[in-house]
C-alpha cells in the first residue's frame, strides 16, 4: 500500500514538474528582454531606420525623425512622378528616404511598428521570418522590392530574426498607412 502511494505520487508529480517555477518565469522574462535588446541592437546597426524612419532636416543636417520611428513612408506625403535618371544613374530617392523609384517602379518603405491596421501588429513571427527569408510579402505574396536588402538579411539566424521581430513588436505603434508600390511606368512608344 505504501509502495503504491509512492508510485502514485511519482506519476502525479510529473505534470507538476512541467509547470514553470517562479525562477523559470523570471528567466523567461529576462530572456524576452534580452531578445528585445538584441533586436534593438540589430535594427540599429543594420540601418533599418535609414529607410523605414522618415528623415527630416535637423539643426545639424538630415536626421531620422524618431517621433515616427520605423513607421515607413508618411501616408500624407504624396509623391510626384519620379524623374528619369540618366545612366549610369539608376534610381531616385525621396528626401525622407522612404520612397524609391527605379526600374522596379516605386517602392515605399513599410510601417514596421506594431500598429494592427497599418503596421505589423497582426503579424506572427513566422510571417516575418517568411518575408525576410523568401523576399515575398508574408512568404507568399508579392515580391519585396528594392532597395530593401532582404537578400542579405535572409542570412540572419533564426534567433536574430526573432530578436528583430520581438523588438519591432515592442516599439510604439504608429498608425501610418503606407501606399502600395507602383509598377514601372509604361514604356514610351517609339517615334
Amino acid at each position: 500500500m505504501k509502495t503504491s502511494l509512492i508510485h502514485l505520487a511519482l506519476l502525479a508529480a510529473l505534470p507538476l514538474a512541467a509547470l514553470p517555477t517562479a525562477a523559470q518565469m523570471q528567466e523567461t522574462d529576462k530572456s524576452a528582454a534580452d531578445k528585445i535588446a538584441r533586436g534593438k541592437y540589430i535594427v540599429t546597426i543594420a540601418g533599418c531606420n535609414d529607410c523605414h524612419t522618415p528623415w527630416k532636416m535637423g539643426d545639424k543636417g538630415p536626421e531620422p525623425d524618431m517621433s515616427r520611428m520605423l513607421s515607413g513612408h508618411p501616408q500624407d506625403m504624396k509623391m510626384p512622378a519620379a524623374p528619369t535618371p540618366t545612366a549610369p544613374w539608376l534610381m531616385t530617392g525621396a528626401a525622407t528616404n522612404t520612397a524609391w523609384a527605379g526600374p522596379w517602379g516605386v517602392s515605399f518603405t513599410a510601417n514596421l511598428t506594431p500598429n494592427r491596421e497599418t503596421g505589423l501588429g497582426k503579424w506572427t513571427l513566422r510571417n516575418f521570418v517568411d518575408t525576410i527569408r523568401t523576399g515575398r510579402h508574408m512568404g507568399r505574396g508579392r515580391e519585396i522590392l528594392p532597395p530593401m536588402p532582404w537578400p542579405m538579411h535572409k542570412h540572419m539566424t533564426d534567433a536574430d530574426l526573432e530578436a528583430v521581430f520581438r523588438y519591432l513588436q515592442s516599439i510604439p505603434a504608429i498608425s501610418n498607412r503606407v501606399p502600395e508600390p507602383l509598377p514601372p511606368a509604361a514604356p514610351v512608344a517609339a517615334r
Partner: protein
Amino acid sequence: MRTPVRPVCTLLAAAALMAAAVDTTADASAEPPLPVTLARTGLFAAGTREPAPGLLSFAPQYPLWTDGAHKRRWLSLPAGSAIDARDPDRWQFPPGTRVWKEFGFGGRPVETRMIERLPDGRWRFATYAWNAQGSEAVLAPEVGLTVSAPGLPGGRYRLPSRADCLACHDGGDDPQGGPLLGLSALQLSPDRDPQALHAETSATSLRTLNDAGLIRGLPPALLDRPPRIAADTPTARAALGYLHGNCGHCHNDSGSLDSLSLSLAQQAADPLASAQRTLDSLLGHASRFRAHGSDSTQRVVGGQGEASVLLQRMQSSNPLARMPPLGVQVIDREGVALVERWIREDLGPRSSTAITRQHSGSTP
C-alpha cells in the same frame, strides 16, 4: 530477493513519459538527387511519352487558373500503400508518393511539375521544361526558368523557382498536412459542380479511390453523401469553389496567413461553417490593401463588385497588386465575371449573409 517489478515499471513509465517530451528529431536521410529528365521520374512508360501503367490520372473539380493552360495530372502511390483520408480536408500521403502536373499551351506541353514525398517524410518539388519538339523535358534550375511560349504576354512563360513552389504548396504549420492541393475529398467529390469554371473531366473520384483501396479511413458519410460546397445558389457554389481552388491554399484559417483573417478555403468536413467563414471574412471587413486612385476600403461590398477590393485585385493590370500573386500573367476574365455576378446577385444589400442551405446530399 524478488525483483521489485511494480516500482521498476513505474519508473520506466515515468521515463517514457519524460522521453516523449524530449525532441528526438531523427537525422534526415540523404536526399537522392532529382532526376535530370522527366522521363526518369517514372511518369512515362518505358520508351514512350505515355503515362506509365499504374499511374492514376485525376482532375480537381475547382482547378487553378494558370493563364488558360491545359493541364493533366497523375498520382503514383507505392505498391500496397494508401492515402490516409481520415481528415477529409488534409489527406496524409505515404512516403514514395509522387504527383505530376503538366501545363500545356497551344497544344503542346510547356512544363511538368512534380511533387514527391521522400522516404523520411519530407516533401520536395521540381519542375521540368519541355523542348519545343515536345520530345523531352529537363529539370529546371532551382531559381526557375523563363521559356518561350507563343500566345502568352510577351511570348514568355515563367517556370517557378523551388521557393515559389513553397509559397502555395507549403503545408502550413502542420508538417504532416502535405502540399498536394488538388487531392482532397472536396476536390475529388463525385458530386462535381456543373458550373465550376475551366472544368476538366476525370474518372477518378472518392468512390473509385475508395473502391480501389487507395484511400482509407474516409468518413463513411462522405461516401454516402459526397461533399459539396454549402451555397444557396449555383452561382454562389461555383464562386466559392473558384475562390477555394485559386485562393484557399494561402487564404485559410489553418496556415501561416491565418493572421490575415481571410478564409477562402472550403471544407468537406464542415461545409456550412467554412462557407460562412468565407462570407464573414469578406463582408463588413476592411481591406488592408488600398489601390492607388481608388476609394475602395472593403474586401467585398455586397452588390457592388466594382467597389470590392477582392475583385479589383483579381483583375488588376498591376502585377504588384494582382491576386493570386504568383502564376498568373493573364487575368481570368471568366473568373472575374463569376465572382462579380456572385457579389452582385447573391451578396446584394437585401441578401441574407447567412448560409441557409445545408449539405443536402449528392446526385448518385
